[in-house]
């Protein structure tokens, strides 16, 4: 008890009064709470516009030798006076402004140590550690983890950090990839930027995969007529990284664009199946074809009276067989690109060289597009499977783009072709790039196999939820941010980058301009130029 007594008994007069003065020093921008998975700090409630804190912004917390990074999830009105006192304002405009602030709730991203290594953090910053907006310096470590396919700049809230390009990893791409956005938020623009970066790699001889884009809207080749919107052919600097095929006569006559053809022998009954709604007996008949005919000549054979007779011998009604044959004839007659010769071998070769292959099929119907995509992708998958057995080492992997992917990867779709690529393509080096505005329609199990997600503005809560529930990186905390993304803004989640990165995707036309001005790669000059389409 003695200690207390002496404490209570001041022994000399000077120790009687030791006033502690609390003055209005900065209490804001300091960590006040809360745990390893959530940091909270306070900022003045009346910041000027240019200093306002935004959801998605990244802040850094300096704590001795460590720099923690945290991303803003939410901002709340708060004050040291609990309760709802501020509803009693009564218009007097008199309150303790130093006791009112905004509380920023932030999610830890990780921690940078002295050697600029970035790690997930298992601890939390010391209470009252100072907090500041993350700057270029703190983001430098990110440059080290970025890949080789540039798609945009790092975005801190709505500000750009132009020093830090956001780039995907070629290595992660043979695994599947998804691009998600409500219409008009920038999917097509993203794909063009992505393709441009791939063309650049291909032209420089650094490409690790071929990219196949089948474009039913005719927007990738030359952009939109009479508008600023440019196409892939306008990337003249790296034009040799691109191979184009078109079903459109006027496009196909352009230099460097080949006419797209496929041969009848490349068409399988299951491709035809995609073109129409079939009754159960009709479907049975379709399924039987490959048993009955030679797979290389079935299209010719089935149209002959002899062929139809063989079908009927197998027990199919003549009406069923008639419908089948009539539809096949229709399709062959309508699609002039079905010929005796075929571009597919050429397409495959270009993909295996690591080029971007654009298949331009403007004004084609939805079903016809699926039909074509089905023929091409099966061909590719089969050839990659063969190569795998034969141990073909030099060929590059390949990524097949599917627009409106919910049509073929949906829980309700019956197009097993693409699902089989999704499920087994990876083994053979064939990946899918699914583009859709409705991720909620894509099967969850499939989504969970996507290693790279480019998420742009998604207004529908169910769409976001579907992604959040199946993404490999945790996106749940970014829900508010994804909801508020503006045109061209994205959250990029990919395995080699330690957290989902906020990005602003380049506007294709700007990126194009920049790339076209780049110094020509020396290697190509030495070779004395490149004539890719005459090979």
């Amino acid at each position, binding site marked *: 008890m003695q200690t207390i007594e002496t404490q209570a008994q001041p022994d000399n007069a000077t120790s009687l*009064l030791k006033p502690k003065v609390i003055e209005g020093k900065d209490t804001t921008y300091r960590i006040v709470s809360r745990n390893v998975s959530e940091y909270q700090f306070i900022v003045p409630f009346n910041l000027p516009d240019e200093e306002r804190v935004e959801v998605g912004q990244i802040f850094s917390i300096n704590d001795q030798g460590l720099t923690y990074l945290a991303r803003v999830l939410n901002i709340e009105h708060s004050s040291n006076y609990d309760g709802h006192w501020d509803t009693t304002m009564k218009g007097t405009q008199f309150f303790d402004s130093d006791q009112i602030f905004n509380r920023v709730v932030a999610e830890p991203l990780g921690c940078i140590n002295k050697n600029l290594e970035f790690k997930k953090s298992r601890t939390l910053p010391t209470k009252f550690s100072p907090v500041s907006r993350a700057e270029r310096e703190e983001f430098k470590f990110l440059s080290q983890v970025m890949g080789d396919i540039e798609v945009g700049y790092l975005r801190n809230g709505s500000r750009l950090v132009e020093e830090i390009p956001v780039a995907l990893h070629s290595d992660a791409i043979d695994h599947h990839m998804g691009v998600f956005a409500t219409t008009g938020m920038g999917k097509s623009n993203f794909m063009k930027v992505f393709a441009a970066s791939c063309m650049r790699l291909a032209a420089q001889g650094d490409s690790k995969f071929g990219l196949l884009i089948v474009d039913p809207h005719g927007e990738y080749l030359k952009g939109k007529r009479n508008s600023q919107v440019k196409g892939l052919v306008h990337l003249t600097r790296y034009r040799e990284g691109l191979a184009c095929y078109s079903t459109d006569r006027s496009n196909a006559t352009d230099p460097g664009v080949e006419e797209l053809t496929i041969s009848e022998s490349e068409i399988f009954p299951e491709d035809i199946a995609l073109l129409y709604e079939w009754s159960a007996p009709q479907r049975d008949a379709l399924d039987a074809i490959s048993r009955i005919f030679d797979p290389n000549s079935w299209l010719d054979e089935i149209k002959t009276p002899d062929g139809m007779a063989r079908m009927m011998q197998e027990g199919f009604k003549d009406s069923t067989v008639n419908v089948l044959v009539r539809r096949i004839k229709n399709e062959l007659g309508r699609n002039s690109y079905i010929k005796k010769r075929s571009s597919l071998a050429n397409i495959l070769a270009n993909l295996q060289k690591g080029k971007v292959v654009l298949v331009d099929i403007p004004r084609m119907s939805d079903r016809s597009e699926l039909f074509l995509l089905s023929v091409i992708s099966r061909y590719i998958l089969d050839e990659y499977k063969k190569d795998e057995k034969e141990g073909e080492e030099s060929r590059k992997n390949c990524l097949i783009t599917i627009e409106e992917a919910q049509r073929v990867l949906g829980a309700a779709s019956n197009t097993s072709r693409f699902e089989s690529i999704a499920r087994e393509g990876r083994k053979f080096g064939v990946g899918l790039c699914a583009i859709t505005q409705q991720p909620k329609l894509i099967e969850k199990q499939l989504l969970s196999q996507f290693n790279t997600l480019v998420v742009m503005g998604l207004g529908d809560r169910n769409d976001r939820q579907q992604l959040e529930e199946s993404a490999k990186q945790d996106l749940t905390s970014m829900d508010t941010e994804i909801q508020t993304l503006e045109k061209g803004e994205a959250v990029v989640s990919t395995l080699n980058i330690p957290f989902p990165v906020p990005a602003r995707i380049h506007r294709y036309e700007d990126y194009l301009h920049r790339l076209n001005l780049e110094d020509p790669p020396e290697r190509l000059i030495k070779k004395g130029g490149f004539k890719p389409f005459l090979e």
Partner: protein
Amino acid sequence: MEDRGRLSIIAELIRDHISLDGLDQFLCQTGVEKNDFVVIQPSDFSGEIFAIDGSNAAICSYLTANVNLIRAGYAVYRKRDWQRTVITFDDLFLADPKLSGTNFDPYLEHFFGLNAINLKESDLDRLSSYYREMQEYVAINDALNRSHPGDIILYDGSFEVFEPLRDVLATIFSRASEKEVALLAVAKSSSLSWGMAITLPFVQHTSMAASQLLPGEAWYLSLKGKKVDAGQGKWGGQTYVVRFCGESEHAFRVDVPEYLGDDMGQILGKLTDHSCSAECLGYPHALFRAHRDIRITEQEGAAARERLIAGLSELGMAHKEIRMLMQDYHDILEMRTRF
């Protein structure tokens, strides 16, 4: 459950205490007249407003002595802007009548030039209240030292103090008067009463009456010559009832030393703009802030208790021993664990 009859009797009594049926009886019995209410004219004031407050939390007790955490200090405003808060005392106090000499005397002597006071007969709770009050007076004294002529010092409470500390107040009054600083005690609760058959709350009823007589006005009323049951009234000053701001329904008991007698209206005029904050409309805001900044929260009390226990353990006391000595039997009955 309670007897219905008794419940309704009590309810009726409370109604009679609270509601003021008709002004006449109030005016007649208390001697208050409409003219006694003086309307406050707001005036501009750019001096400093000091608000003194204190706080006291019981940490533990072992029947013959208490340990309290005591804090005193003041908040300073200029107009509506907080300037600083000063904590003048923030420490444990061991309340034991036999130690009161060593506890109190050095302060009384050093700050107020007073000789020892006799507190040997005081009970433990009262002892810690005295100590807190004394520390509040030390805070007033410190505020006085830092104030300038024309400034205002507000004290949370009343100047109607216990006998032993009355000399301290007298010293403070004379220093404040010399320095030409206004000193007001503003009481949130008051036992001023009126009435013959039952005890009626004077401050509330005055406030209700004024709302009818002078709606929307800020005013003050001197109790001089009114038939009010006040305390002993021997502390050397004047008691008023004040409505600091016209938008509020509240009124407060305000004690001021004799030397301010003539300046009341002028001083209160300087406080009207300062008494209409969002946080506590009708109450001088500096007092609100002083309360907030100086109060000892439950967590602080608990933390102090833990530090004390740790200190005891370090001195070799077993936890069992500490518990035996310090656990309040009420805690056992209430099934609370504090140790």
